[in-house]
Each structure stands twice: as structure tokens, then as C-alpha cells.
């Protein structure tokens, strides 16, 4: 087994290694099994799932849940809205965050410390829900798709991560050399800083993207019109408004009804369909995670 390195092992170390190995398998299963179960449950016969017969592989293959989902226009409207909000929103996020982070990373920029405080203060203190809501009302962002895109387009945490990355990857000498050749800040940012920063752009791009995709709060508070609602609100209606309690008294003992079983299968399918885009992007960006978070952790 290559799991354990061979040289210089005492028995107690070997036992330790085996212990760690078993622990890792256990952790792996605890995280992975629920996810795996949802996948197999979504394509299995709902009666077998409900009675606990489906455990390790799909049984009684059925795509009932998925065919129902494909016919449900609410999901597609939600999907379309969320894609628009996510794409436009992430673009605006990056457009505002990257230049601001670049500026805050320039040590020769005198106002930098005051501006940093201006941004960081908002992490610890805020006006709260109601004043924010009334402001949105005043600037006509209630029931308006731009409420997903404009108001919180600069995330201070992501701003700090990016700034710290620029600080460590763009030494002062590099800028001075470029400046000698007549390079302005605009040119330096566009032609040198950005191409050197693919790692951090990917990481904060992913953070923003996932934030938009999973955003439920904005739709709940600021949107009334159902045709503007993002996917997460639609999901809430499907997954949660049809809760176990809707079928009757709500105490646990009653046998699940026939309709409830079909509802459950649709739920498993909805979970897959709504999470799929994130899961597709995940492997591509994953390699940057360690790097991205480490950069952010250097200075809080």
C-alpha cells in the first residue's frame, strides 16, 4: 500500500496511520453519501425510495421526477432569471472589485488607508434590514431586476482577498519599471496586473457567481412579481412549501401518502437540476481554492 510511507515506522505510528485512514473513509462517506443518495433517489422508483429499499444503487429506474420538472414552467422562468442575474451580476462585481482592489494595493497611493477603513467598517457595522429596505424603496429597486445586480456589487471580503493578492504578486519594482517605459495605471492594470492574476480572478469570480446563484434573500425581500423571481425562490416553493406538514396533522407517525411520494421524487430531481451548473464549474476552479483562501488569510 502506498498509503503509508515505508521508512522509519514504529508500530504505534502504523496504528496511528490506520486510524487516520479509517477516520478519513468515515468522513468521506458522511459527506458523499447524502449527495450520492439524492442522485440515485432521483432516478429510482419513488415507492422503493420511500420504503427505504434504495440504499446503494438505483432501483426500479424511473425518470418520472425529471419529466415533471421539464414540464414545469416555473422552474424554467426561475432558471432563466437566475442565469441573467448571475451572468450580469458577476460581470458587474468583477468590473467594480478588480480595479478598486488594484488601487487599494498601490502602496504609494496616499488615501489608501482611509479608503480601506471606509470599506472594512461596513463589515462590522450596518444599517440593518429596515433602513436598507426603505432605501431600496426610495431608489425604485423594489420589484426591479437591478436589485440583484447593483446594490451589493462590491463584497468587501472579496475586495480584501483581491487586494492582498495584488500586493503580493505585483511588486513595486514591477510598476516602477513599467512607469519608466511610460506606462500609466490604466495600462499597467489592464496589460500587466490582470493577466498575472488569473488565480484570484477565478476564485472571487466563483465566490460571486455562487453567491448570485444561491441568492434567496434578495428575491424574498425585494421582489414581489413572480416573473422576476430567481430560481431559489421557485425552489423554496417546490421543496419547502410542500413540506411534510402540508399533508395533514404533521405528527410523524402517519404513513406517507401516495402523492407525497411522487412529490419527493420531484424534489430529488429539483435538487439535482438546480445544483448542476455549480457542480459543472466546480472542478475547473477547485484547484485555485487553497491559493485563494490562503491569500485572503494573510491579512484579515
Amino acid at each position, binding site marked *: 500500500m502506498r*498509503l503509508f510511507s515505508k521508512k522509519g515506522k514504529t508500530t504505534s*505510528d502504523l496504528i496511528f*496511520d490506520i486510524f*487516520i485512514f479509517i477516520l478519513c473513509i468515515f*468522513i*468521506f462517506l458522511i*459527506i458523499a453519501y*447524502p449527495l450520492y443518495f*439524492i442522485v440515485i433517489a432521483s432516478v429510482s422508483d419513488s415507492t422503493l425510495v*420511500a420504503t427505504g429499499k434504495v440504499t446503494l444503487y438505483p432501483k426500479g429506474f424511473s425518470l418520472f421526477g425529471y419529466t415533471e420538472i421539464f414540464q414545469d414552467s416555473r422552474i424554467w422562468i426561475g432558471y432563466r432569471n437566475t442565469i441573467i442575474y448571475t451572468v450580469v451580476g458577476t460581470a458587474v462585481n468583477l468590473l467594480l472589485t478588480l*480595479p*478598486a482592489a488594484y*488601487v487599494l494595493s*498601490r502602496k504609494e*497611493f*496616499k488615501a489608501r488607508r482611509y*479608503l480601506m477603513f471606509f*470599506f472594512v467598517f*461596513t463589515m*462590522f*457595522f450596518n*444599517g*440593518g*434590514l*429596515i*433602513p*436598507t*429596505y*426603505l*432605501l431600496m424603496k*426610495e*431608489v425604485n429597486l423594489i420589484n426591479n431586476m437591478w436589485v440583484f445586480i447593483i446594490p451589493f456589487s462590491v463584497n468587501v471580503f472579496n*475586495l480584501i482577498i483581491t487586494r492582498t493578492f495584488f500586493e503580493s504578486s505585483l511588486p513595486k519594482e514591477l510598476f516602477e519599471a513599467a512607469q519608466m517605459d*511610460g506606462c500609466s*495605471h490604466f495600462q499597467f492594470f489592464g496589460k500587466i496586473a490582470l493577466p498575472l492574476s488569473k488565480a484570484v480572478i477565478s476564485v472571487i469570480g466563483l465566490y460571486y457567481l455562487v453567491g448570485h446563484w*444561491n441568492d*434567496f434573500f434578495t428575491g424574498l*425581500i425585494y421582489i414581489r412579481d413572480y416573473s422576476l423571481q430567481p430560481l431559489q425562490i421557485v*425552489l*423554496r416553493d417546490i*421543496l*419547502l412549501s410542500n*413540506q*411534510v*406538514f402540508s399533508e395533514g396533522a*404533521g*405528527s410523524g407517525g*402517519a404513513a406517507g401518502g401516495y402523492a*407525497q*411520494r411522487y412529490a*419527493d421524487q420531484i*424534489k*430529488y430531481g429539483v435538487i439535482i437540476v438546480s*445544483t448542476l451548473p455549480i*457542480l459543472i464549474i*466546480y472542478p475547473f476552479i477547485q484547484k485555485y*481554492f*487553497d491559493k485563494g483562501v*490562503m491569500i485572503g488569510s494573510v491579512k*484579515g
Partner: protein
Amino acid sequence: MAVANTETEKVDVKYSQVPKKKSAKIIQSFIRDYQLWLMILPAIIVIFIFNYIPMYGVQLAFREYDFTKGITGGEWVGLHYFKQFIDSYMFADLMKNTIVISLATIIFGFPAPIILAIIINQVVWKRWKKAIQTTVYLPHFISLVVMVGMINVLLSPNSGVVGHIVSSLGFDINLLASESAFVPVYVLSDIWQHAGWNSIIYLAALASVDTQLYDSAKIDGASRWQVIRYVDIPAIVPTMIILFILSMGNILNTGFEKIFLMQNPLNLPVSEVIATYVYKIGIISNQFSYSAAIGLFNTLINFIFLILMNYIAKKASNISLW
């Protein structure tokens, strides 16, 4: 051409020692750095409008809200709404629920990523390590709506896989509807979803440990456990303290969304927290001033906790946020 001019000006300012008036200096620095200002201006405007203007609007908590006069036009009522909240029959329950949920989240949720990082760090085989990391980070990206949906289908006593396991172990409990199960389900699902992701920062700290320390520990004949105890753990203590201060600063900031989504009439006595109450009073029943006062009360307590914890940590270990 304008670019070239500002660059020469910059050199002049830097190297000529001619004293200048302060205001002239400031104006000149604006001209010199106009490109930098242009790049940061959009971010400043957005933060100012959507973060600072609501802070100004906080005075609503001390005023009678009058929709004809706007946020700042209503009659001044001082601490009236704070008194109303503290005297209300909801106050004790809200405080208790909020503190129980967030303390449980800190006590059980805080050590989880640390332990996980130490375990993952012990894995020698690179690909297996990578596979575990990829898996444990994944749930972090699941939306809260889907997460609560998963809890509902998996824990359902009639049809869920966890529900089946619990009942086959002989417990007759509906995990979704009983008051005693709410906090454990909330905290455990939170650990399940985020412990992996939160371990990244500790793994990064562990990765930066000087390998010479490991070598010398080996020469001294330290066992694997002793290496963890005397090399790994001291290496992550500073990170632990910083993150602990930050989490104490959020003591009354239980995540609104997850609790709101997990609420049902049966668990409401233990699941109603300040954040969900602010939403219901403010957005649903339009009592803006009262709701703003409760929200401000919450923010202030968090802020005090943050400063207090930071002070204690500074005294005790010389590590602090600022």
C-alpha cells in the same frame, strides 16, 4: 499626452523639496492620481449608497416612521421602541433562542474544521488527500434552500433515509417537527455543509509550517501524535484566535435564511430568533421603526462582543484584529 504630463508632475512633487500649501498639495495629489481615483470611484459610490446611507437611516429606530416625511422626517421618540422591545413578551424567548443557536453553532461548529484540517493534513497519499478535500469542500456550494430541502427529504420520518435509520434505532422522534431536535439538526447540518470549506484556512496554515520542525521532531523521536500536539496545533493557534474573535462578533447574527427556511409552526417556539422576528415585524407587518430598533439592538450587541473579545485576545495572547 495628459498621461505623460501627470507623470512628470509626479516626479516633481516627489523630488523637489519646495514647500507648498496643504490644500494645493491635496489638489495636486488628486490630479496626479486621477486614474487611481477613477478606478476606485464606482466601488466607493456603491458602498456609500447601499451601506452608509442605511447607517444614517438607523435613526429611524429613534423616530416615529411617517411615510410622507421619509426616514428622517418622523417625530423623535428616543428609546421608546427599544423599551417596547425589552418589555415585550417575545424578548426573553428571542434572546434565548438566538443565543442558544449561535452558541451551539460556535461550540460545536468551531472545532470541527480544525479537527478536520489536522486529520486531512495527516494523509500522506496525495491523490487520496485531494479526493477528500474535493469532497468535503463541495457541500459549501449548495444553496441554503436546497440544503434545507435536502434536510427535509432525508430526515422525513416516513420516507427519508436518515428518518428510517433513526426509527430503526428505536427512537420515535420526528426530526423535522420536534422542538428538541431543531438545534441539533441545525448545527449538525451546518457542520456537514461548512466544516470542509472552513478547514481550508487551517490547512493553509499547516502547509506553511517549516518542514525543519517536522524533521527535528522526528530526530527527537516524537510520535505522530506528539507532532500534532507540539508542532501542528501551535502553528494554527493564531488563525484559531482570529477566527474565534470574528465568530464571537457574530454571536447574535444567526444566519437568517437557514433558520427562516427551517421554521415551521411546530418548532417555532425554539426557532424564532431576532433576525427572523425583524423580518416578520418589519417587512411583513410594516412596523418599520420597531423593527429597525430591534435590528439596531442586535447590531450593537454584536459590535460590543467583537470589541470585548478582541480586547481579551489582545491581553491574553497579543493577537488581535486591529
